[in-house]
Protein backbone atom coordinates (compact mmCIF):
# COMPACT_ATOMS: atom_id res chain seq x y z
CA UNK A 1 0.00 0.00 0.00
CA UNK A 2 1.21 3.43 -0.93
CA UNK A 3 1.14 5.88 1.98
CA UNK A 4 0.08 9.41 1.15
CA UNK A 5 0.47 12.30 3.53
CA UNK A 6 -2.82 13.94 2.59
CA UNK A 7 -4.59 10.76 3.63
CA UNK A 8 -3.54 10.92 7.29
CA UNK A 9 -7.12 11.12 8.65
CA UNK A 10 -7.81 7.81 6.97
CA UNK A 11 -4.95 6.09 8.74
CA UNK A 12 -5.82 7.47 12.15
CA UNK A 13 -9.47 6.50 11.86
CA UNK A 14 -8.43 3.05 10.63
CA UNK A 15 -6.48 2.52 13.83
CA UNK A 16 -9.41 3.75 15.96
CA UNK A 17 -11.80 1.48 14.11
CA UNK A 18 -9.52 -1.50 14.51
CA UNK A 19 -9.16 -0.85 18.26
CA UNK A 20 -12.93 -0.52 18.58
CA UNK A 21 -13.54 -3.84 16.85
CA UNK A 22 -10.81 -5.68 18.74
CA UNK A 23 -12.18 -4.32 22.02
CA UNK A 24 -15.72 -5.42 21.14
CA UNK A 25 -14.64 -8.94 20.24
CA UNK A 26 -12.45 -9.03 23.34
CA UNK A 27 -15.39 -8.19 25.65
CA UNK A 28 -17.45 -10.97 24.11
CA UNK A 29 -14.64 -13.49 24.36
CA UNK A 30 -13.83 -12.56 27.93
CA UNK A 31 -17.45 -12.91 29.07
CA UNK A 32 -17.72 -16.24 27.29
CA UNK A 33 -14.51 -17.74 28.70
CA UNK A 34 -15.24 -16.45 32.20
CA UNK A 35 -18.64 -18.10 32.17
CA UNK A 36 -16.90 -21.48 32.27
CA UNK A 37 -14.72 -20.59 35.24
CA UNK A 38 -15.43 -20.98 38.92
CA UNK A 39 -15.87 -17.77 40.93
CA UNK A 40 -12.42 -18.33 42.41
CA UNK A 41 -10.80 -18.60 39.00
CA UNK A 42 -12.50 -15.39 37.89
CA UNK A 43 -10.82 -13.59 40.77
CA UNK A 44 -7.44 -14.93 39.68
CA UNK A 45 -7.34 -12.78 36.56
CA UNK A 46 -8.46 -13.07 33.01
CA UNK A 47 -5.48 -14.72 31.34
CA UNK A 48 -5.95 -17.90 33.31
CA UNK A 49 -8.10 -20.29 31.32
CA UNK A 50 -10.67 -22.34 33.20
CA UNK A 51 -9.03 -25.41 34.75
CA UNK A 52 -12.01 -27.42 33.68
CA UNK A 53 -14.41 -26.50 30.90
CA UNK A 54 -17.62 -27.48 32.62
CA UNK A 55 -21.21 -26.46 32.10
CA UNK A 56 -21.85 -26.37 35.87
CA UNK A 57 -22.55 -22.64 35.89
CA UNK A 58 -25.03 -23.00 33.07
CA UNK A 59 -26.82 -25.96 34.58
CA UNK A 60 -27.09 -24.09 37.87
CA UNK A 61 -28.69 -20.92 36.48
CA UNK A 62 -30.93 -22.77 34.05
CA UNK A 63 -32.26 -25.30 36.52
CA UNK A 64 -32.02 -23.88 40.03
CA UNK A 65 -32.78 -20.33 39.04
CA UNK A 66 -35.28 -20.95 36.28
CA UNK A 67 -33.60 -18.96 33.54
CA UNK A 68 -34.99 -21.46 31.02
CA UNK A 69 -38.50 -20.62 32.14
CA UNK A 70 -37.88 -16.87 31.72
CA UNK A 71 -36.57 -17.48 28.21
CA UNK A 72 -39.65 -19.46 27.29
CA UNK A 73 -41.85 -16.67 28.62
CA UNK A 74 -39.99 -14.06 26.60
CA UNK A 75 -40.16 -16.12 23.45
CA UNK A 76 -43.91 -16.49 23.80
CA UNK A 77 -44.66 -12.90 24.81
CA UNK A 78 -42.38 -11.34 22.21
CA UNK A 79 -43.57 -13.53 19.32
CA UNK A 80 -47.22 -12.81 19.96
CA UNK A 81 -46.54 -9.11 20.50
CA UNK A 82 -44.60 -8.88 17.23
CA UNK A 83 -47.43 -10.49 15.28
CA UNK A 84 -49.96 -8.25 16.97
CA UNK A 85 -47.96 -5.14 16.10
CA UNK A 86 -48.04 -6.12 12.43
CA UNK A 87 -51.76 -6.80 12.47
CA UNK A 88 -52.41 -3.41 14.08
CA UNK A 89 -49.91 -1.33 12.09
CA UNK A 90 -50.01 -2.68 8.54
CA UNK A 91 -53.50 -1.51 7.54
CA UNK A 92 -52.99 1.89 9.18
CA UNK A 93 -49.60 2.38 7.58
CA UNK A 94 -51.01 1.45 4.18
CA UNK A 95 -53.95 3.83 4.51
CA UNK A 96 -51.79 6.70 5.77
CA UNK A 97 -49.13 6.17 3.11
CA UNK A 98 -51.48 5.89 0.17
CA UNK A 99 -54.77 7.59 0.79
CA UNK A 100 -55.95 10.99 1.73
CA UNK A 101 -59.08 11.40 3.82
CA UNK A 102 -60.39 14.00 6.23
CA UNK A 103 -57.97 14.37 9.15
CA UNK A 104 -55.39 12.01 7.63
CA UNK A 105 -52.47 14.41 8.22
CA UNK A 106 -53.64 14.81 11.81
CA UNK A 107 -53.91 11.05 12.37
CA UNK A 108 -50.45 10.56 10.87
CA UNK A 109 -49.00 13.27 13.09
CA UNK A 110 -50.59 11.71 16.18
CA UNK A 111 -49.05 8.32 15.50
CA UNK A 112 -45.61 9.70 14.64
CA UNK A 113 -45.61 11.88 17.76
CA UNK A 114 -46.10 8.69 19.75
CA UNK A 115 -42.52 7.69 18.97
CA UNK A 116 -41.32 10.49 21.25
CA UNK A 117 -43.47 9.60 24.27
CA UNK A 118 -41.22 8.22 27.01
CA UNK A 119 -42.76 5.10 28.48
CA UNK A 120 -41.99 6.53 31.94
CA UNK A 121 -44.47 9.36 31.42
CA UNK A 122 -47.35 6.97 30.90
CA UNK A 123 -46.69 3.85 32.94
CA UNK A 124 -48.15 5.09 36.24
CA UNK A 125 -51.60 5.79 34.73
CA UNK A 126 -51.24 2.68 32.57
CA UNK A 127 -50.75 0.66 35.73
CA UNK A 128 -54.14 1.74 37.01
CA UNK A 129 -55.81 1.27 33.63
CA UNK A 130 -54.38 -2.24 33.35
CA UNK A 131 -55.36 -3.01 36.95
CA UNK A 132 -58.91 -1.89 36.19
CA UNK A 133 -59.14 -4.42 33.35
CA UNK A 134 -57.26 -7.08 35.40
CA UNK A 135 -54.27 -7.28 33.08
CA UNK A 136 -51.47 -6.58 35.56
CA UNK A 137 -49.27 -9.65 36.03
CA UNK A 138 -50.67 -11.45 32.99
CA UNK A 139 -49.14 -12.48 29.69
CA UNK A 140 -52.01 -10.78 27.88
CA UNK A 141 -51.25 -7.52 29.66
CA UNK A 142 -47.56 -7.39 28.87
CA UNK A 143 -48.15 -8.52 25.27
CA UNK A 144 -50.69 -5.76 24.83
CA UNK A 145 -48.37 -3.12 26.30
CA UNK A 146 -45.47 -4.22 24.12
CA UNK A 147 -47.68 -4.16 21.06
CA UNK A 148 -49.32 -0.79 21.60
CA UNK A 149 -46.08 0.98 22.54
CA UNK A 150 -44.38 -0.43 19.42
CA UNK A 151 -47.16 0.62 17.04
CA UNK A 152 -46.00 4.22 16.39
CA UNK A 153 -42.50 3.26 15.27
CA UNK A 154 -43.75 0.29 13.26
CA UNK A 155 -46.20 2.56 11.44
CA UNK A 156 -43.40 5.02 10.75
CA UNK A 157 -41.20 2.32 9.22
CA UNK A 158 -44.00 0.71 7.22
CA UNK A 159 -45.19 3.99 5.75
CA UNK A 160 -41.73 4.40 4.25
CA UNK A 161 -42.11 1.02 2.58
CA UNK A 162 -45.60 1.49 1.27
CA UNK A 163 -44.58 4.78 -0.29
CA UNK A 164 -41.74 3.09 -2.16
CA UNK A 165 -44.06 0.56 -3.85
CA UNK A 166 -45.32 1.58 -7.32
CA UNK A 167 -49.08 2.14 -7.54
CA UNK A 168 -49.74 0.52 -10.93
CA UNK A 169 -50.52 -3.04 -9.80
CA UNK A 170 -52.88 -1.87 -7.14
CA UNK A 171 -54.71 0.33 -9.64
CA UNK A 172 -55.02 -2.55 -12.08
CA UNK A 173 -56.60 -4.66 -9.37
CA UNK A 174 -59.07 -1.90 -8.55
CA UNK A 175 -60.06 -1.52 -12.19
CA UNK A 176 -60.68 -5.27 -12.29
CA UNK A 177 -63.18 -4.70 -9.50
CA UNK A 178 -61.22 -5.76 -6.45
CA UNK A 179 -62.30 -4.26 -3.16
CA UNK A 180 -59.89 -2.09 -1.21
CA UNK A 181 -59.41 -4.90 1.29
CA UNK A 182 -58.57 -7.38 -1.48
CA UNK A 183 -56.11 -5.00 -3.09
CA UNK A 184 -54.43 -4.53 0.28
CA UNK A 185 -54.26 -8.21 1.19
CA UNK A 186 -53.46 -9.70 -2.21
CA UNK A 187 -51.35 -6.98 -3.84
CA UNK A 188 -49.86 -4.68 -1.26
CA UNK A 189 -48.96 -7.11 1.51
CA UNK A 190 -46.87 -9.41 -0.69
CA UNK A 191 -45.07 -6.42 -2.17
CA UNK A 192 -44.37 -4.94 1.23
CA UNK A 193 -42.80 -8.17 2.43
CA UNK A 194 -39.27 -6.79 2.96
CA UNK A 195 -40.76 -3.99 5.05
CA UNK A 196 -42.89 -6.37 7.06
CA UNK A 197 -39.90 -8.59 7.72
CA UNK A 198 -37.59 -5.84 8.85
CA UNK A 199 -40.14 -4.03 11.00
CA UNK A 200 -41.00 -7.40 12.60
CA UNK A 201 -37.35 -8.03 13.33
CA UNK A 202 -37.01 -4.56 14.82
CA UNK A 203 -40.03 -5.00 17.07
CA UNK A 204 -38.90 -8.50 18.04
CA UNK A 205 -35.43 -7.32 19.07
CA UNK A 206 -36.65 -4.23 20.91
CA UNK A 207 -39.31 -6.11 22.89
CA UNK A 208 -36.99 -9.06 23.55
CA UNK A 209 -34.60 -6.71 25.36
CA UNK A 210 -37.35 -4.65 27.01
CA UNK A 211 -36.98 -4.38 30.76
CA UNK A 212 -38.83 -1.47 32.30
CA UNK A 213 -42.44 -2.34 31.43
CA UNK A 214 -41.79 -5.89 32.57
CA UNK A 215 -40.40 -4.56 35.84
CA UNK A 216 -43.51 -2.49 36.49
CA UNK A 217 -46.17 -4.85 35.19
CA UNK A 218 -44.87 -8.32 36.07
CA UNK A 219 -44.11 -9.40 39.61
CA UNK A 220 -45.03 -13.09 39.60
CA UNK A 221 -41.85 -15.10 39.22
CA UNK A 222 -43.32 -17.66 36.82
CA UNK A 223 -44.31 -14.94 34.34
CA UNK A 224 -41.08 -12.96 34.23
CA UNK A 225 -39.39 -12.21 30.91
CA UNK A 226 -35.71 -12.78 30.27
CA UNK A 227 -34.46 -9.28 31.17
CA UNK A 228 -36.48 -9.23 34.36
CA UNK A 229 -35.47 -12.81 35.16
CA UNK A 230 -31.82 -11.95 34.75
CA UNK A 231 -32.35 -8.98 37.04
CA UNK A 232 -33.78 -11.14 39.81
CA UNK A 233 -30.96 -13.61 39.20
CA UNK A 234 -28.53 -10.76 39.84
CA UNK A 235 -30.23 -10.03 43.15
CA UNK A 236 -30.00 -13.62 44.31
CA UNK A 237 -26.51 -14.42 43.04
CA UNK A 238 -25.05 -11.19 44.43
CA UNK A 239 -26.09 -12.27 47.89
CA UNK A 240 -24.45 -15.66 47.52
CA UNK A 241 -21.39 -14.17 45.78
CA UNK A 242 -21.87 -16.51 42.81
CA UNK A 243 -20.20 -14.38 40.11
CA UNK A 244 -19.50 -17.38 37.92
CA UNK A 245 -23.22 -18.11 37.80
CA UNK A 246 -23.91 -14.52 36.82
CA UNK A 247 -21.44 -14.71 33.93
CA UNK A 248 -23.25 -17.79 32.69
CA UNK A 249 -26.57 -16.00 33.11
CA UNK A 250 -25.36 -13.03 31.08
CA UNK A 251 -24.04 -15.31 28.31
CA UNK A 252 -27.32 -17.21 28.23
CA UNK A 253 -29.15 -13.95 27.68
CA UNK A 254 -26.68 -12.58 25.14
CA UNK A 255 -26.16 -15.62 22.91
CA UNK A 256 -29.69 -16.36 21.65
CA UNK A 257 -30.40 -12.76 20.67
CA UNK A 258 -26.98 -12.42 19.05
CA UNK A 259 -27.42 -15.59 17.00
CA UNK A 260 -30.91 -14.54 16.01
CA UNK A 261 -29.61 -11.15 14.98
CA UNK A 262 -26.72 -12.55 12.93
CA UNK A 263 -29.14 -14.80 11.07
CA UNK A 264 -31.48 -11.97 10.14
CA UNK A 265 -28.99 -9.08 10.01
CA UNK A 266 -29.03 -8.76 6.25
CA UNK A 267 -32.79 -8.29 5.98
CA UNK A 268 -32.82 -6.13 9.02
CA UNK A 269 -30.14 -3.63 8.05
CA UNK A 270 -31.33 -3.13 4.49
CA UNK A 271 -34.94 -2.88 5.59
CA UNK A 272 -34.59 -0.56 8.52
CA UNK A 273 -32.59 1.97 6.59
CA UNK A 274 -34.86 1.86 3.55
CA UNK A 275 -37.83 2.59 5.79
CA UNK A 276 -36.19 5.43 7.67
CA UNK A 277 -34.53 6.97 4.65
CA UNK A 278 -37.82 7.49 2.88
CA UNK A 279 -39.41 9.84 5.36
Amino acid sequence: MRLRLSEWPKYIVSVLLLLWIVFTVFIGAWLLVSSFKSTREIFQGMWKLPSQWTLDNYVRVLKDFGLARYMGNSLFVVTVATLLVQVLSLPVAYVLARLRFPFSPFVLLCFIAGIAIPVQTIYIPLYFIMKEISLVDTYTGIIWLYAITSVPFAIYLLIGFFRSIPTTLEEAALIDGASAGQAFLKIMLPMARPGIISSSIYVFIMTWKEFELALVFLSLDEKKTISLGLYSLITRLTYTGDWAGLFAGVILVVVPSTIFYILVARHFISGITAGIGKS
Partner: protein
Amino acid sequence: MDPRSEMYKNRYKNFILVATVPVFVFYVTFMIVPIGMSFFYSLFDWAGFTSDMEFVGLGNYSSLLFKDDLFRRTILNSLKYVFYGGILIFGITLLFTYRISNFKSKRLKDFIQMLMFVPNTISPVALGIGWTFLLNPRWGAFNNLIDTLGLSSIKRPWLSEEFIFGSMMSLLVWIHVGFFLVMFLAAADRIPYSLYESAQLDGASSWKMFMTITLPLIRDIISTSVVMWIIFSFKIFGYIFAFIGGAASDPPVSIRNIAVQLYLTGFGKRTPLYRLGYASGMGIILLLLVVILIYVFQRLFRTTEAIEF
Protein backbone atom coordinates in the same frame (compact mmCIF):
# COMPACT_ATOMS: atom_id res chain seq x y z
CA MET B 1 -55.29 6.78 -12.75
CA ASP B 2 -55.40 8.12 -9.27
CA PRO B 3 -56.70 5.77 -6.59
CA ARG B 4 -57.73 8.83 -4.67
CA SER B 5 -60.20 9.89 -7.35
CA GLU B 6 -63.94 10.09 -6.78
CA MET B 7 -64.61 6.67 -8.21
CA TYR B 8 -62.54 4.91 -5.61
CA LYS B 9 -63.46 7.05 -2.69
CA ASN B 10 -66.49 5.00 -1.74
CA ARG B 11 -64.74 1.73 -2.18
CA TYR B 12 -62.05 2.88 0.19
CA LYS B 13 -64.25 4.49 2.79
CA ASN B 14 -65.08 1.38 4.77
CA PHE B 15 -61.57 0.09 4.49
CA ILE B 16 -60.14 3.31 5.88
CA LEU B 17 -62.57 3.22 8.77
CA VAL B 18 -61.90 -0.41 9.64
CA ALA B 19 -58.15 -0.05 9.28
CA THR B 20 -57.63 3.14 11.26
CA VAL B 21 -60.40 3.74 13.76
CA PRO B 22 -59.88 0.77 16.14
CA VAL B 23 -56.09 1.14 16.21
CA PHE B 24 -56.36 4.88 16.66
CA VAL B 25 -58.77 4.42 19.57
CA PHE B 26 -56.45 1.88 21.22
CA TYR B 27 -53.48 4.11 20.66
CA VAL B 28 -55.20 7.17 22.14
CA THR B 29 -56.53 5.16 25.09
CA PHE B 30 -53.23 3.58 26.03
CA MET B 31 -50.72 6.24 25.05
CA ILE B 32 -52.32 9.69 24.82
CA VAL B 33 -54.94 9.55 27.57
CA PRO B 34 -52.31 8.40 30.11
CA ILE B 35 -50.36 11.60 29.45
CA GLY B 36 -53.41 13.59 30.50
CA MET B 37 -53.91 11.32 33.50
CA SER B 38 -50.26 11.75 34.46
CA PHE B 39 -50.69 15.50 34.41
CA PHE B 40 -53.85 15.13 36.49
CA TYR B 41 -52.09 12.92 39.08
CA SER B 42 -49.20 15.37 39.21
CA LEU B 43 -51.51 18.01 40.68
CA PHE B 44 -52.04 15.89 43.78
CA ASP B 45 -50.12 14.70 46.74
CA TRP B 46 -50.99 11.04 46.38
CA ALA B 47 -49.45 7.82 47.61
CA GLY B 48 -51.36 5.76 45.07
CA PHE B 49 -53.49 2.71 45.79
CA THR B 50 -55.71 4.84 48.06
CA SER B 51 -58.36 7.44 47.36
CA ASP B 52 -56.59 9.86 49.68
CA MET B 53 -55.55 12.53 47.19
CA GLU B 54 -54.73 16.04 48.30
CA PHE B 55 -54.89 18.74 45.63
CA VAL B 56 -51.67 20.75 45.59
CA GLY B 57 -51.94 22.53 42.23
CA LEU B 58 -48.52 23.01 40.72
CA GLY B 59 -46.92 22.39 44.12
CA ASN B 60 -45.22 19.18 43.01
CA TYR B 61 -43.59 21.02 40.13
CA SER B 62 -42.25 23.82 42.27
CA SER B 63 -40.84 21.27 44.73
CA LEU B 64 -39.31 19.23 41.91
CA LEU B 65 -37.72 22.15 40.14
CA PHE B 66 -36.75 24.40 43.04
CA LYS B 67 -36.42 22.31 46.20
CA ASP B 68 -35.61 18.71 45.34
CA ASP B 69 -31.82 18.71 44.92
CA LEU B 70 -31.74 15.01 44.18
CA PHE B 71 -34.20 15.39 41.31
CA ARG B 72 -32.40 18.43 39.96
CA ARG B 73 -29.26 16.38 39.88
CA THR B 74 -31.02 13.68 37.87
CA ILE B 75 -32.21 16.31 35.37
CA LEU B 76 -28.63 17.43 35.02
CA ASN B 77 -27.50 13.83 34.49
CA SER B 78 -30.16 13.29 31.82
CA LEU B 79 -28.94 16.42 30.03
CA LYS B 80 -25.34 15.25 30.34
CA TYR B 81 -26.27 11.90 28.80
CA VAL B 82 -28.00 13.55 25.87
CA PHE B 83 -25.35 16.22 25.18
CA TYR B 84 -22.02 14.58 25.97
CA GLY B 85 -23.31 11.23 24.78
CA GLY B 86 -24.60 12.80 21.58
CA ILE B 87 -21.34 14.59 20.85
CA LEU B 88 -19.27 11.46 21.42
CA ILE B 89 -21.63 9.12 19.60
CA PHE B 90 -22.12 11.25 16.52
CA GLY B 91 -18.48 12.33 16.41
CA ILE B 92 -17.25 8.75 16.45
CA THR B 93 -20.02 7.53 14.14
CA LEU B 94 -19.12 10.17 11.56
CA LEU B 95 -15.43 9.26 11.69
CA PHE B 96 -16.26 5.59 11.23
CA THR B 97 -18.71 6.39 8.44
CA TYR B 98 -15.91 8.29 6.70
CA ARG B 99 -13.56 5.33 6.93
CA ILE B 100 -15.97 2.47 6.30
CA SER B 101 -17.73 4.08 3.33
CA ASN B 102 -14.30 4.04 1.65
CA PHE B 103 -13.99 0.27 2.00
CA LYS B 104 -13.84 -1.55 -1.30
CA SER B 105 -15.03 -4.86 0.11
CA LYS B 106 -18.78 -5.00 0.67
CA ARG B 107 -18.45 -8.10 2.84
CA LEU B 108 -16.07 -6.39 5.23
CA LYS B 109 -18.41 -3.42 5.38
CA ASP B 110 -21.37 -5.65 6.19
CA PHE B 111 -19.41 -7.63 8.74
CA ILE B 112 -18.26 -4.56 10.68
CA GLN B 113 -21.74 -3.08 10.66
CA MET B 114 -23.20 -6.31 11.94
CA LEU B 115 -20.62 -6.72 14.68
CA MET B 116 -21.03 -3.17 15.91
CA PHE B 117 -24.80 -3.42 15.95
CA VAL B 118 -24.84 -6.52 18.16
CA PRO B 119 -24.85 -4.63 21.51
CA ASN B 120 -28.14 -3.04 20.41
CA THR B 121 -29.80 -6.44 20.35
CA ILE B 122 -28.76 -7.41 23.87
CA SER B 123 -30.80 -6.99 27.05
CA PRO B 124 -29.77 -3.79 28.87
CA VAL B 125 -29.65 -5.74 32.12
CA ALA B 126 -27.05 -8.12 30.68
CA LEU B 127 -25.02 -5.20 29.32
CA GLY B 128 -25.26 -3.18 32.52
CA ILE B 129 -23.99 -6.03 34.66
CA GLY B 130 -21.50 -7.20 32.02
CA TRP B 131 -19.97 -3.73 31.79
CA THR B 132 -19.53 -3.56 35.58
CA PHE B 133 -17.77 -6.94 35.43
CA LEU B 134 -15.52 -5.56 32.75
CA LEU B 135 -14.67 -2.48 34.82
CA ASN B 136 -14.46 -4.21 38.18
CA PRO B 137 -11.33 -2.73 39.75
CA ARG B 138 -10.13 -6.02 41.27
CA TRP B 139 -10.76 -8.71 38.67
CA GLY B 140 -12.33 -6.89 35.73
CA ALA B 141 -10.88 -7.44 32.28
CA PHE B 142 -10.22 -3.76 31.66
CA ASN B 143 -7.75 -3.28 34.50
CA ASN B 144 -6.26 -6.70 33.70
CA LEU B 145 -5.66 -5.53 30.18
CA ILE B 146 -4.08 -2.28 31.34
CA ASP B 147 -1.72 -4.30 33.55
CA THR B 148 -0.81 -6.61 30.71
CA LEU B 149 0.03 -3.66 28.48
CA GLY B 150 2.31 -2.37 31.24
CA LEU B 151 0.27 0.79 31.79
CA SER B 152 -0.61 0.13 35.43
CA SER B 153 -0.32 3.82 36.28
CA ILE B 154 -3.53 4.64 34.41
CA LYS B 155 -5.52 2.08 36.36
CA ARG B 156 -8.42 3.70 38.18
CA PRO B 157 -11.32 2.55 40.36
CA TRP B 158 -13.69 2.87 37.40
CA LEU B 159 -16.80 2.26 39.48
CA SER B 160 -16.06 4.78 42.22
CA GLU B 161 -18.04 7.98 42.65
CA GLU B 162 -15.45 9.91 40.67
CA PHE B 163 -15.41 7.77 37.52
CA ILE B 164 -18.74 6.01 37.46
CA PHE B 165 -20.52 8.53 35.25
CA GLY B 166 -17.81 8.21 32.63
CA SER B 167 -17.99 4.43 32.89
CA MET B 168 -21.73 4.50 32.33
CA MET B 169 -21.29 6.88 29.41
CA SER B 170 -18.69 4.64 27.80
CA LEU B 171 -21.23 1.80 27.75
CA LEU B 172 -23.87 4.00 26.13
CA VAL B 173 -21.43 5.28 23.51
CA TRP B 174 -20.17 1.78 22.73
CA ILE B 175 -23.73 0.58 22.14
CA HIS B 176 -25.15 3.44 20.14
CA VAL B 177 -22.27 4.10 17.75
CA GLY B 178 -23.15 0.73 16.21
CA PHE B 179 -26.79 1.74 15.88
CA PHE B 180 -26.28 5.06 14.12
CA LEU B 181 -23.41 3.75 12.01
CA VAL B 182 -25.86 1.44 10.24
CA MET B 183 -28.06 4.39 9.37
CA PHE B 184 -25.25 6.71 8.28
CA LEU B 185 -23.61 4.07 6.09
CA ALA B 186 -26.88 3.24 4.38
CA ALA B 187 -27.35 6.93 3.58
CA ALA B 188 -23.76 7.24 2.35
CA ASP B 189 -24.24 4.18 0.11
CA ARG B 190 -27.09 5.88 -1.68
CA ILE B 191 -24.88 8.71 -2.92
CA PRO B 192 -24.10 8.11 -6.61
CA TYR B 193 -20.46 7.36 -7.24
CA SER B 194 -20.28 9.82 -10.12
CA LEU B 195 -20.41 12.69 -7.64
CA TYR B 196 -17.01 11.66 -6.32
CA GLU B 197 -15.36 11.18 -9.68
CA SER B 198 -14.66 14.79 -10.59
CA ALA B 199 -13.36 15.47 -7.10
CA GLN B 200 -11.06 12.51 -7.50
CA LEU B 201 -9.72 13.86 -10.77
CA ASP B 202 -8.94 17.11 -8.98
CA GLY B 203 -6.88 15.06 -6.54
CA ALA B 204 -9.08 15.74 -3.51
CA SER B 205 -8.23 13.71 -0.41
CA SER B 206 -10.75 11.22 0.93
CA TRP B 207 -11.30 13.47 3.96
CA LYS B 208 -12.07 16.47 1.80
CA MET B 209 -14.52 14.44 -0.27
CA PHE B 210 -16.22 13.24 2.88
CA MET B 211 -16.57 16.76 4.22
CA THR B 212 -17.75 18.38 0.97
CA ILE B 213 -19.78 15.60 -0.64
CA THR B 214 -20.79 12.86 1.79
CA LEU B 215 -21.56 14.96 4.85
CA PRO B 216 -23.93 17.45 3.20
CA LEU B 217 -25.72 14.59 1.45
CA ILE B 218 -26.35 12.54 4.59
CA ARG B 219 -27.62 15.58 6.46
CA ASP B 220 -31.18 14.32 6.58
CA ILE B 221 -30.29 11.04 8.18
CA ILE B 222 -28.02 12.80 10.69
CA SER B 223 -30.91 15.03 11.67
CA THR B 224 -33.29 12.05 12.04
CA SER B 225 -30.64 10.23 14.07
CA VAL B 226 -30.10 13.09 16.49
CA VAL B 227 -33.84 13.24 17.12
CA MET B 228 -33.81 9.48 17.73
CA TRP B 229 -30.92 9.87 20.15
CA ILE B 230 -32.79 12.57 22.09
CA ILE B 231 -35.73 10.18 22.40
CA PHE B 232 -33.56 7.15 23.27
CA SER B 233 -31.32 8.85 25.76
CA PHE B 234 -34.04 10.23 28.00
CA LYS B 235 -35.69 6.79 28.15
CA ILE B 236 -32.51 4.97 29.16
CA PHE B 237 -33.28 2.88 32.20
CA GLY B 238 -32.13 -0.74 32.25
CA TYR B 239 -28.43 -0.04 31.67
CA ILE B 240 -28.35 2.31 34.65
CA PHE B 241 -30.63 0.22 36.81
CA ALA B 242 -28.52 -2.93 36.42
CA PHE B 243 -25.16 -1.16 36.65
CA ILE B 244 -23.08 -2.25 39.69
CA GLY B 245 -25.32 -5.27 40.01
CA GLY B 246 -28.13 -2.80 40.74
CA ALA B 247 -30.20 -5.17 42.78
CA ALA B 248 -28.23 -4.96 46.00
CA SER B 249 -28.83 -1.23 46.32
CA ASP B 250 -30.42 1.62 44.40
CA PRO B 251 -28.30 2.89 41.49
CA PRO B 252 -25.79 5.54 42.66
CA VAL B 253 -26.98 9.13 42.40
CA SER B 254 -24.10 10.07 40.10
CA ILE B 255 -25.47 7.96 37.24
CA ARG B 256 -29.20 8.26 37.91
CA ASN B 257 -31.29 9.97 35.26
CA ILE B 258 -34.88 11.17 35.42
CA ALA B 259 -36.24 7.81 34.25
CA VAL B 260 -34.53 5.93 37.08
CA GLN B 261 -35.42 8.50 39.71
CA LEU B 262 -39.04 8.38 38.56
CA TYR B 263 -39.18 4.62 38.97
CA LEU B 264 -37.56 4.77 42.40
CA THR B 265 -40.03 7.44 43.51
CA GLY B 266 -43.10 5.80 42.04
CA PHE B 267 -42.53 2.08 42.39
CA GLY B 268 -39.10 1.64 44.01
CA LYS B 269 -39.44 -1.39 46.23
CA ARG B 270 -36.95 -0.09 48.77
CA THR B 271 -38.80 3.15 49.37
CA PRO B 272 -41.69 2.37 51.71
CA LEU B 273 -43.72 5.30 50.39
CA TYR B 274 -45.14 5.37 46.89
CA ARG B 275 -45.30 9.01 45.85
CA LEU B 276 -47.25 8.64 42.66
CA GLY B 277 -48.39 12.25 42.30
CA TYR B 278 -44.83 13.44 42.65
CA ALA B 279 -43.49 10.78 40.27
CA SER B 280 -46.14 11.70 37.69
CA GLY B 281 -44.84 15.27 37.82
CA MET B 282 -41.40 13.90 36.93
CA GLY B 283 -42.95 12.07 33.99
CA ILE B 284 -44.47 15.28 32.65
CA ILE B 285 -41.17 17.14 33.04
CA LEU B 286 -39.44 14.29 31.21
CA LEU B 287 -41.87 14.49 28.30
CA LEU B 288 -41.54 18.28 28.11
CA LEU B 289 -37.74 18.06 28.05
CA VAL B 290 -37.84 15.58 25.16
CA VAL B 291 -40.26 17.74 23.19
CA ILE B 292 -38.36 20.97 23.87
CA LEU B 293 -34.99 19.50 22.94
CA ILE B 294 -36.33 18.04 19.69
CA TYR B 295 -37.89 21.40 18.85
CA VAL B 296 -34.75 23.40 19.66
CA PHE B 297 -32.55 20.98 17.75
CA GLN B 298 -34.70 21.14 14.65
CA ARG B 299 -34.76 24.92 14.75
CA LEU B 300 -30.98 25.12 15.07
CA PHE B 301 -30.38 22.53 12.39
CA ARG B 302 -32.59 24.39 9.96
CA THR B 303 -30.95 27.74 10.69
CA THR B 304 -27.44 26.47 10.07
CA GLU B 305 -28.65 25.08 6.77
CA ALA B 306 -29.96 28.50 5.76
CA ILE B 307 -26.56 30.03 6.47
CA GLU B 308 -24.61 27.36 4.63
CA PHE B 309 -26.34 27.71 1.30
